[in-house]
Structure formats: structure tokens, C-alpha cells
């Protein structure tokens, strides 16, 4: 009998908001501090999204509380430039969210093709 390992689905109480997904995506590549996050998200979204300071820190606070990201001190910087990085839990949540996007876009394209036929 062949056993196939499948990743169990994570059920969220509610879907992640766009700023949260963008922050997780930005931190997936490397740790960043606040302003670097804003700039990277702007580039990542092709200048469609520019997070305000309030939006950014509201989302960061929530992610810290959930344990999806963590703060750490960079050796050569002050408290104002504490950096953030993904935890293993945060990485897992991002993977699930991106999988969900993939499924959704697959379903969307299938519907489009159905409409064209």
C-alpha cells in the first residue's frame, strides 16, 4: 500500500488580510525592520500598496501576538531599528495561505474557461 504524505490544512478563524500576507511574504526572504518592510511591500506589490505606519504596526503587533513573527535586536542598530523575522509557524501559515491562493486562482481560471467555451 502506498502512503502519500499530505500536509494537513490549517483552518483560520478568518482569512488573512492583504497587509498581513504582504508582511509575511516580505519577511519570508529575509528579516527586515519597519521602514524596510514598507519599501519592500511597495516594490512587491508594484507600487499598488503603500502601508501607513499605523497599518504596518497594527499588523506587526497582531503577528507578534500570534507567534508568527518575532523581534530581534540587530547588533549594530538602536531600538528604533529592531528587526522582524518569520518564525517556523509564520512560514507554515504563509505556505498554507499561498496554497489557498493557488487553489483559488486555479478555480477562477477554470470558471473563465468555462465561460469562454
Amino acid at each position, binding site marked *: 500500500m502506498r502512503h502519500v504524505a499530505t500536509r494537513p490544512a490549517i*483552518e483560520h478563524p478568518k482569512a488573512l488580510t492583504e497587509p498581513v500576507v504582504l508582511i509575511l511574504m516580505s519577511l519570508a526572504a529575509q528579516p527586515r525592520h*519597519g*521602514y524596510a518592510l514598507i519599501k519592500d511591500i511597495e516594490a512587491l506589490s508594484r507600487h499598488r500598496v503603500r502601508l501607513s*505606519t499605523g497599518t504596518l504596526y*497594527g499588523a506587526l503587533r497582531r503577528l507578534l501576538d500570534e*507567534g508568527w513573527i518575532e523581534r530581534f535586536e540587530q547588533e549594530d542598530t538602536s*531600538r528604533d531599528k529592531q528587526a522582524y523575522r518569520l518564525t517556523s509557524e509564520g512560514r507554515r501559515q504563509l505556505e498554507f495561505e499561498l496554497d489557498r491562493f493557488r487553489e483559488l486562482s486555479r478555480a477562477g481560471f477554470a470558471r473563465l474557461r468555462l465561460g469562454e467555451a
Partner: protein
Amino acid sequence: MGAVFRVLLYLYPQRHRELLGSEMQAVFEQGAQEHRLLGPSQYLRFVLLEVCGLVLHAAIAQFANATRRGYLENHVRSTLAPAQDIPHEVIEAQNRLAVNINQLSFAISHHQFVQARFYKNEERKAREHLRQMQEKYGFRDPQPLP
């Protein structure tokens, strides 16, 4: 404008302000510096968006603070303010376990038993990891967890 931003930060709950206020101020000032170079209209737009964002999110933070919705800090030691005598790795292990317990409870309460089994395994691993960290740093008495 920095002074106005500093005053507006008082709209946030005290804990949020203490933990993130100086960082928020620094990020705002960096943005303001950049937008000032782009001309008065861009600068004005930036300031308006920042002020609106700040007021809105301060209200959300106050609401969350009052109701504790979405905040784990009632139940676990927060990652934001580790006690100085507890090593970071132990705090991280405690938080990981707390998150797993949270997800396990959620899965059980929503009758998602496949997920619950998965989180049970994850919880076991997290407990073992926490025990190892406590041993590594010589904590004989495990820290109480929810």
C-alpha cells in the same frame, strides 16, 4: 510634524506605545523625509494618509485592548516583553507551545479532528522542545502554561 505624530501616538494603548512607539516614530520620520523631497503635494498626501492610518489603527488597538480579541497576551507570556532572566529560546519555545495549544483548541471546538490530531502531534513536539530548552538553561521547574 514629528511632534504631532508623537502626540497622536497617545491614542494607542499604553502597552502598544511603550513597545512600538519609538519604532513607529522613527519609521514615520524616515517616510516624511523621503516624501518631503518629492514636493509639497506628495508630502501632504503622505501626512494625511499617515494621520488617518494612525487614528484608525489606534481605535482598532484600543478596541482589541479592551476586548482582548485576537490577543494572546492574556494567556501567554508575550514575545514582545521577555523577562530579562528567561532566555529567548525558552520564551520562543513557550510561545510555540501556546500557539499550538490555541490551534488545537480551535480545531477541536470546530470538530476538525484531522487538524486536531496534527496539532496534537505538533503540541507534543513543542512540549518536548520546551523541555529541552528548559534543561539547557537549567530551569528545573517548568514555567506554568495555560
